[in-house]
């Protein structure tokens, strides 16, 4: 019976711990700097991709494209296979002028997203146009389109325009001098205070990357060449991919087979190794090496760069804040600046400060918080001084009373000795009043206790909430 109760308690504790961890992982507030950097790179890649497409637009969109509208629609709507929900209105756009205008707007939106102009609006719009395009461009897509779409997807609904953006400049310009701004303004031009939405977006992309690498690794593990180590050769020996000729490595099978094995194991175990603080730098360094190699050697600079940028989601925004010379609390800096939860506690501290609401930036929020703390301390010091003087006055009175009592006792002892003390003596009446609650021994214990009690419960840092004794 006791063991059952103990087991239940343990399960209850475990469940409680799990829920706490879940809350901490998903709903802790996070700074937005990492997402803002990713926004710039993703926006730039979207812009580049759309501009390149614009140079040959009629070959990829419209009635005479490589895959024309009818074929693209038939490949999605179930005519030539299983129907999918990958719908695009571009299947129905035949007019070259309309396609041109649409693409021009797409480029404008991507550029706005990149520079962080009206990011709350251009983010979702950039994602929308990207989805419409990729559902139309079936057949000419590759890994770049996947990772850039996923990054845009998670950035679209995060306040990633709060820093390094035109929005941040507009916010400073329009909110300067005005204490209160409307809710719409605050939503459109979010402050760079930590937010839960930034954390959720970060976590989702982090987990999505883990899924990509896990299944990429498992798919490779089904092949033979990734196990015998020669897969790397068949990548660098592929003429159509090759952008840097490193075929001399054919003479060094020990080297390229080692690269193959490292790549396979790194990819399979990425999802586990990227979380612990001490294995994360190694895991990310290999990611940079692998994708850098793809960018330089396999002719996919765009894909390689975008994957490296996506891996940057594991870099803590606190690290970037330090580069921005924004003060970061030491305990969190000491957490390597890259931990998935390293900035959560800092965020909580900053959120807890009421001054955060009034200040436009976190830097000024911190200053306001410090000023308020100083004011509180000064107030506490003043209160402490007053109480000290009051106690000193009380002590003086007690000393005075003690002296009187001593004098009375001395007189009583003298009368006792010479036998002149009689019942009803005035001295006895005086001592009855004076000695009450103090006693005949000259001890000050009660007094000290009284003083201690008066100070207990007094919070120097929070004088307004002290428990007056």
């Amino acid at each position: 019976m006791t063991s059952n109760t103990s087991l239940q308690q343990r399960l209850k504790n475990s469940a409680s711990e799990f829920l706490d961890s879940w809350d901490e992982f998903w709903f802790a507030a996070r700074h937005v700097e990492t997402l803002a950097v990713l926004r710039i790179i993703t926006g730039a890649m979207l812009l580049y991709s759309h501009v390149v497409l614009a140079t040959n637009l009629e070959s990829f969109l419209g009635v005479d494209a490589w895959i024309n509208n009818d074929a693209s629609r038939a490949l999605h709507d179930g005519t030539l296979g299983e129907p999918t929900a990958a719908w695009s209105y571009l299947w129905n756009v035949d007019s070259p002028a309309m396609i041109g205008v649409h693409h021009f707007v797409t480029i404008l939106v991507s550029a706005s997203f990149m520079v962080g102009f009206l990011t709350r609006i251009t983010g979702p719009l950039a994602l929308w146009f990207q989805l419409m395009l990729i559902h139309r461009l079936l057949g000419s897509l590759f890994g770049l389109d996947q990772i850039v779409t996923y990054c845009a997807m998670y950035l679209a609904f995060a306040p990633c325009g709060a820093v390094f953006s035109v929005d941040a400049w507009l916010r400073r310009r329009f909110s300067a001098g005005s204490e209160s701004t409307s809710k719409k303004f605050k939503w459109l031009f979010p402050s760079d205070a930590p937010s839960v939405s930034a954390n959720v977006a970060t976590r989702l992309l982090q987990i999505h990357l883990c899924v990509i690498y896990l299944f990429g690794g498992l798919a490779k593990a089904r092949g033979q060449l990734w196990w015998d180590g020669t897969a790397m050769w068949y990548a660098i020996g592929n003429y159509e991919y090759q952008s840097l000729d490193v075929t001399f490595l054919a003479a060094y099978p020990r080297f390229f087979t080692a690269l193959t094995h490292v790549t396979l194991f790194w990819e399979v175990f990425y999802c586990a190794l990227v979380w612990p603080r001490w294995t994360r730098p190694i895991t990310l360094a290999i990611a940079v090496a692998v994708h850098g190699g793809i960018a330089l050697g396999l002719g996919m600079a765009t894909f390689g760069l975008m994957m490296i940028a996506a891996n940057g989601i594991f870099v803590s925004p606190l690290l970037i804040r330090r580069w921005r010379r924004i003060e970061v609390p030491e305990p969190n800096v000491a957490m390597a600046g890259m931990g998935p939860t390293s900035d959560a506690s800092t965020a909580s501290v900053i959120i807890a400060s009421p001054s955060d609401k009034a200040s436009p930036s976190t830097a000024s929020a911190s200053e306001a918080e410090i000023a308020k703390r100083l004011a509180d301390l000064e107030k506490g010091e003043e209160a402490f001084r007053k109480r000290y003087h009051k106690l000193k006055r009380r002590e003086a009175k007690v000393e005075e009373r003690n002296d009187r009592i001593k004098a009375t006792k001395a007189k009583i002892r003298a009368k006792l000795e010479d036998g002149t003390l009689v019942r009803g003596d005035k001295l006895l009446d005086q001592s009855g009043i004076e000695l009450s609650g103090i006693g005949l021994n000259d001890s000050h214990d009660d007094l000290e206790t009284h003083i201690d009690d008066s100070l207990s419960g007094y919070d120097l840092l929070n004088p307004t909430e002290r428990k007056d004794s």
Partner: protein
Amino acid sequence: MSPPTSPRISRRLRIVLSLLILAHLSAVIAPPLAFQSRGPRGLSPSVSLLLSPLAAYGQFLYLDRGYAFFAPDPGPSHLMRVEISSGENDSAEANDANVETRLYPSLDDQWPRLLYHRHFMLAEFLNDAYQPALPGEAAKLVGSDLPIEELKAWRMGRQRYEMIADSMIRHLQKKFDAQDVKIDRLEHMIPDFVPYANEPTPLNDPPTYVLLEDIPITLDTLLGVLPQDLPQPEPRETVPAPSGEPIRDRSETSETTDERERDSETTVPIDRQRAVVPPVSEGVSPQ
């Protein structure tokens, strides 16, 4: 339970958000899991159960990917050799003179590299979509040996390939103002590293390009690829390493891109006749 980390999120909102996050993560995980768990008898029932309620969501957000980059094994590339004839003169000699041969992708014609890569993916897409034509008498075999669904799937696969090829041909006709356009699929073999290290030859050596001809499937082959006759259980794991020799079987080719792998889900390994491509006057070398 300890106090919430963020005072701005209520408990109710956290529960709702948690459910949405779990649903999204399921939509992220299910497609690659489905891709890996598809066998000769179709998709794993449990994975199918996970995938089906979130399939539309994943398809629209482009989450329905397998992420099998250069997997299971990196293999040869596929290209398109295009013969464009203006056809203004009726004589055969004049026709030969008017035929222009181009190769897709080509770094000479497509720049920047991203544009080249998009054309590269189109060539791979056409190759992945390939399905040979069925013999005319295939319909007579419908019965226990050849279920009607199987026949329909074959025909739909062929229609799919033809629609893609026709679309590409129309694009090239329009682009080059040509009367006739012919697209051939080429496979570019990768040499084995041992002979290459001993005697390096250019990777774009003409004999390394193999023409993949479009020949209708025979009845024997058609009956030979029914599910119960497919090699069990894992044909991919017995794939020999590319040796530079022409490949005899479709199953020996491996996929190098996610696009290829996704589309190959609907194709069935088949016999194809291949021929070494005769040297082409221009365009064989993409650089």
